[in-house]
């Protein structure tokens, strides 16, 4: 008899989602979907707000990656002002972004995914969390806590607070970096590098244990997209967009991020509030692609820092279609983050007092693009002549990955879910493929056109009195 399995909620991710697995009469998986069950709607309710509020407003989209939204939003506002911000300001924004990469990647790898990797996909659910890791592998837990702490301390020293710092503003940042904070951040770097290298060494030593998952997680074939700098190297703040495949072939290069609508499309599916983003030249849904750490390292020529680049030969031996390798890519990006912060803090004018370009609005449209921990983030604003927002479109990193996540749950469910021999570990593997993407679902759902909506009026006794739908 046909049956439907529901995993609700999906655990150890950011935000709210469920997975539905449809079994046919023989108990085999016929289809599966990944449903994002929350709507944020920032694109709509920011209409009418003064544009200079947008960075602070948009930072509230998320408590894990607020810096990403601050930066993309501020860059969009830079476009509205039509200014080129001072170089020290751009570098300070870069350092803030790198600090966020470090803390967010640490959260994803150590807090959310390491329980599966260290304790096993079939471990007891009650123990399959950071506390379980602390009990069995305290060094790894300690390292994860310390890396996250370091990233957050850097953000606090730069921006004034760890979550929703208000330091990034249209035109630059609102205060220069002090010598004291520069020196404190520099003092953290050696420990940060040693800590993440310890985890990389451990992870590379055990990666073969996950061969079945690596193979299953590679069944969804996609392109990959990320920002690169002028040398084709890893770039999180400002550059060109590049699309490539897992073999390292470049499909499209030097794409102007501001012209994103020429090559990126957004579609809506009835099973999720999350938009499905696709590469327009290949149409929908064939234009499926991924973003984030795996995608970035697949499309770059190099990371551009020596220790991270030393990891790339091994990385390139892996099956880079497999979403499992997001984990290793995340660790490489943490390592790169520490190296790049160190490099930027040694630039001669990093303590410059000139960190903001002042102007009135000079354009009615601004687009800001930056790499968030989870992938490419786009903020697109239009304003009226009074500087009030008339339109906002956000293309969130997790949205770029929506099609790939949806297909991935189907492929993994097909491999592991057998109705005749059901166990919790099978369902955990379906969740685990979602965790490789490190989705940020609170960030990801806003609006496109008119949202499908169903309202139920429910009496105190639970009876549904009336239903309205569109």
């Amino acid at each position, binding site marked *: 008899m046909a049956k439907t399995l529901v995993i609700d909620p999906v*655990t*150890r991710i950011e935000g709210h989602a469920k997975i539905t697995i449809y079994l046919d009469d023989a108990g085999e998986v016929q289809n599966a979907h990944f449903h994002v069950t929350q709507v944020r709607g920032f694109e709509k309710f920011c209409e009418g707000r003064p544009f200079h509020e947008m960075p602070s407003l948009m930072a509230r989209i998320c*408590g894990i990656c607020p810096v990403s939204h601050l930066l993309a939003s501020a860059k969009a506002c830079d476009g509205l002002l039509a200014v080129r911000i001072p170089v020290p300001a751009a570098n300070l924004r870069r350092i803030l972004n790198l600090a966020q990469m470090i803390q967010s990647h640490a959260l994803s790898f150590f*807090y959310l995914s390491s329980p599966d990797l260290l304790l096993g996909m079939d471990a007891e*659910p*009650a123990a*399959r*969390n*950071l*506390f379980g890791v*602390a*009990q069995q592998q*305290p060094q790894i*837990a*300690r390292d994860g*806590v*310390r890396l*996250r*702490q370091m990233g*957050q301390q850097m953000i606090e020293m730069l921006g004034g607070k760890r*979550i929703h710092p208000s330091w990034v503003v249209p035109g630059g940042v609102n205060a220069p970096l002090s010598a004291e904070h520069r020196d404190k951040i520099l003092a953290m770097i050696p420990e940060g590098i040693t800590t993440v290298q310890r985890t990389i060494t451990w992870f590379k030593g055990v990666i073969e244990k996950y061969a079945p998952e690596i193979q299953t997680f590679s069944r969804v074939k996609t392109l990959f997209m990320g920002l690169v700098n002028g040398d084709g190297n890893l770039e999180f703040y400002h550059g060109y967009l590049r699309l490539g495949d897992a073999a390292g072939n470049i499909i499209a290069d030097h794409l102007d991020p501001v012209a994103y609508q020429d090559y990126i499309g957004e579609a809506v599916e009835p099973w999720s509030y999350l938009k499905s983003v696709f590469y327009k030249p290949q149409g929908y849904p064939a234009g499926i692609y991924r973003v984030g750490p795996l995608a970035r390292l697949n499309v770059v020529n190099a990371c551009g820092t020596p220790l991270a680049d030393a990891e790339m030969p091994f990385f390139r031996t892996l099956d880079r279609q497999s979403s499992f390798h997001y984990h290793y890519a995340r660790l490489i990006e943490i390592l790169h983050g520490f190296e790049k912060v160190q490099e930027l803090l040694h630039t001669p004018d990093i303590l410059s007092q000139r960190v903001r370009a002042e102007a009135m609005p000079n354009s009615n449209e601004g687009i800001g693009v930056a790499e968030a921990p989870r992938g490419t983030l786009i903020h697109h604003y239009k304003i009226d002549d009074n500087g009030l927002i008339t339109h906002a479109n956000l293309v969130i990193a997790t949205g770029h990955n929506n099609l790939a996540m949806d297909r991935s749950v189907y492929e993994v469910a097909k491999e592991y879910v057998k109705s005749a021999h059901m166990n919790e570990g099978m369902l955990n593997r379906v969740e685990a493929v979602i965790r490789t993407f490190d989705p940020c679902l609170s960030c990801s759902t806003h609006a496109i056109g008119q949202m499908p909506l169903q309202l139920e009026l429910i009496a105190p006794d639970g009876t549904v009195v009336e239903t309205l739908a569109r």
Partner: protein
Amino acid sequence: MILVIGYGNPLRGDDAIGQVLAEQLASRFAPELLQTLPCFQLTPELAQPISAAAAVLFIDADIQLTPYTVLYQTVQPEPSGALVHHVTPGSLLTLATQLYGRVPPARLIRIGVPYLEYSAELSPSLREYVPHFLDYAEAILRKWL
């Protein structure tokens, strides 16, 4: 050094009382005697400063207590729940032991609050009690010092 961790959501009205008290207690003590960590919620990263402290005082709002009353209790290490985003004072003590080999004495002040509605401020009635709560917490801390 004694550590004060006051936590709560500053956008949910009186839930912010823990943060407010932690912020204001800092000015009543020399910095070498007291470290305060106002925070939105308890997270695993707090295990490290907890393990290094001589003693820890947690401060939190509690909608289930009679408003404006205070409950003062000892915190013992306890097993964690399955969800890392619902970390408790007791589970942080356990984590401090597991990761850093040390757990200090710990207490919790629970403050009964009337309102957890969307607001960036404490309710006026609770705000009137803030000096009283500060004096109460200060007296506890001075006994420890």
